[in-house]
């Protein structure tokens, strides 16, 4: 069993790759917050339909999330060996 070794300074492409991984970790957090956003909408104006606004908002958000996930799936490399070691617990040790 090798002891996990960490590289502190990476070349440009490995650094970029690590940031992409951070993006992949952040995306669901932002998405979750945005999904809860309709809970804060004002409800006092009965003349406006919240349902059709909700449909437009939620499906718009969905499309944006799919596009972002698509872009990430294109740029993320799955092999671990790009920088010796991915940080074992979530946030990279950089």
């Amino acid at each position, binding site marked *: *069993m090798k002891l*996990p070794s960490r590289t502190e300074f990476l070349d440009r492409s490995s650094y970029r790759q690590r940031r992409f*991984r951070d993006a*992949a*970790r952040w*995306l*669901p*957090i932002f*998405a*979750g917050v945005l*999904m*809860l956003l*309709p*809970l804060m909408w004002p*409800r006092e104006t*009965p003349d406006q*339909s*919240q*349902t*059709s606004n*909700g*449909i437009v908002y*939620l*499906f718009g958000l*969905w*499309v944006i*999330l*799919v*596009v*972002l*996930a*698509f872009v*990430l*799936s294109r740029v*993320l490399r*799955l092999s*671990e060996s790009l920088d010796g*070691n*991915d940080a*074992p*617990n*979530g946030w990279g040790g950089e």
Partner: protein
Amino acid sequence: MISFNLLIVVSLMYVVFLFLVAFAAERRAAQGKTSWVRSSVIYTLSLSIYCTAWTFYGAVGYAARSGLEFVTIYLGPTLVMIGWWWLVRKLVRIGRTQRLTSIADLISSRYGKSPVLGVMVTVLAIVGTTPYIALQLQSVTQSIAVFAASSDEMWLPGDLNRAAMWVAVGLAVFTVLFGTRNLDAHERHHGIVLAIAVEAVVKLCALLAVGIFVVWGIAGGVGATLELIDASAQSQWSPSPSRWIGLIFVSGAAFVCLPRMFQVLVVENSDEQSLSTASWAFPTYLMLMSLFVVPIAVVGLDLMPESANPDLFVVTVPISEGRQGLAILAFLGGFSSATSMVIVATLSLATMVSNHIIVPSWLNARTPGAVVSGDVRQVVIMSRRVSISVILALGYVYFRVSGGGTALASIGLVSFIGVVQVFPAMIGGVFWRGANRWGAGAGLIVGFSVWLWTNFLPSFGIDAVISQAVFLGGPFGIGWLRPEALFGISGTDPFVHALFWSIFLNTSAFIFVSILTFPNPLERLQGAQFVNVFDYSSGARTWLQSAAQAEDLLVMSQRILGGAEALSIFATEARSQGKTGFQPDVTPDFIGRLERELSGSVGAATAHAMIGQLTEGTIVSVDDLIAVADETAQIMEYSSRLEAKSAEANSTARALREANEKLTALSIQKDAFLSQISHELRTPMTSIRAFSDILRDEDVENVARKRFAGIIHEQSNRLTRLLDDLLDLGVLESGQVQLNIGQDILADVLDRAVIASGVNTGKLAIARRAGNETVNVHTDLDRLAQVFINLISNAAKYCANDVPKLRIIVRQFAGQTIIDFCDNGAGIPSESQSMIFEKFSRLEDEGKAGGAGLGLAICRQIMGALGGDITYLPGQGGAAFRVTLPAAQVLVLQ
């Protein structure tokens, strides 16, 4: 109007088509052509079994009742999939390295291959999934009944039940046929995966077709649809925050915890690249599935009579508009949703039942020689077939008993909360090494009990299982145990209430017990491998040198894996050990590998138990672990000691190198000094000898004699000064100097020094600030003045500026008095700065002045004797020296 019989014919043709698809896929897989089944597209489509008949029919009903809230059921999985880097990627990696066969296997394997946990998760999954299977049967029969009603053929309740029974039987046949054809070491089922991928396409197309028809065919475009929504009863959408959050959480968690989802997401996954594609493709699928739900619901509410069941709008709206073809497509979509879910759910449950309940019981019943003598392979396959039939029968019975009256969505949610009870143990097991089997067991029991009491049993209705009295007053009159108001907190939404308390108490028990108890060694090993799965690609050893014989192991493996596969594993191993034949040495590595292969067929706990029988239980013990740990610790300590030593050696070498450089430089300086001092001594001596010769030999005039004698006197003075300096330095260095302590104001000492140095103040400007110099000094004043004189005359001699200037700055700092002498000349090059206070040193290029390189050395000795210091100040724009007087000898004048 299309006759009811046509619907039956179309359905049967569709079923035959699915059988053919599955059969063809199995054929191709058997020929080794599996790459197309393993493609990302098929993987993504197979995930769509998340969308069951609940989605297909129920979502529209849900939207008709509660508006946009239905969408949360799809937002949760969307979050999980776009966040695949966190959880799903890890699960898939663990699933592959540990050869997991089901979610029960994940929990059991993580917590030390515990058989008990496997049974618990299996029971939980059966209880949670059976209503769901019943729900699928119900939806199929309900939609059949709709067609029957529209074709004026009256159905009796018995006919409905018969239809449900035939559907269940058909599903059982399909699942048995394609789910248990072989005992695959990877537990992957190409036929089933392809069939559900086809069904995924059918249900998506059907729902989209109905949606497009409703929006553009009935409502008249997007704008008109939105107006219709605004005008409907659902226009006011005010989601309850607790339900909204709770539903997103429960659907996201259920997405990874549902046995059928775990099956397609983790077990059937063959590479992580598919996962990367599914991370965006599956959310797209979910979005398309829910895109037309609200329009269909609103149009349905608008068109259909009050009494119409909104759960069936997807079928009834096209029928009422006379679109029979579309209605049949919609029916096939619903049928696909129901059947694909039932097939995979049944298969995954059957795997769990056979691996965690039947086979272990069978093994226990036949110990000890059972493993070798019995035909395990047949037992496993038979147990799976029986399990599939029993589970479907259970679903059918549930359907008959419950009567199929409740709204579809509520059964779905009850089931979701039930399976989500595995979530804390799963997340804890994957991210927290401290989680152990006691904690996981406690969490599961607590969560399961709370779920049963607050959600599952009440879902049958008041007075069905729990009486009205208990609902109002609690069991045995204990008020705080009321099923919908635990701890007396009443008034919350029943769903939120059940979800919150079951998950909260579950997680609390899990964490609390995990912290208080100890895991066994195998758990620790498994925990490390699960949590750090990306660090350890190969499995750690869990077996020591064992008593098992290769032949026994081979016989047992053949019974599980089949002759050809077992032989090939043994042959490969033997070859890798450099042997021929089929009997490799039984190394711990080999046993570990073999166990993983077996666990791919019968689950980790069973495989472990079976190998344990043959190896006579020589599993890793605590002592072994401690021995390994000690060894590691010793090696690490030794290595850190070596490191420390090497660092020490490095610094010593560096110090030696510096000393050597200094010595070399000094030696060179000394040689230079010797030649210098010879020169210094010879010049006056030559003059003295020459003039004394003249005086002795020749008759010299009076005036000239006087002049010559003057020269001799001056030269001998110079010699004396040189010798005085040398003697002075000798005395100072030997420490025998006599100090003559006196007291004066610093300004006076400096005045005297400037005068005594004989410096022409017209030539060298001296800048002083009298205000700062009123410091009383208590020291050897003459010696201090000697230092000052030396520094001032040095400045006069060496300052190479056209307008030479010397600044004398007096400062108080931390009780000390600091006197800086800074000129505006060239300064001293940095390589010489460390040398100037050494005796005999002088700057090579500045040999012009008469000194012998002793002045600064004497200054340093004097300051040392006075308890102060003299240092060179670099970076002051010229040569700069700092004289520091110690605090004790300084008294500031008030």
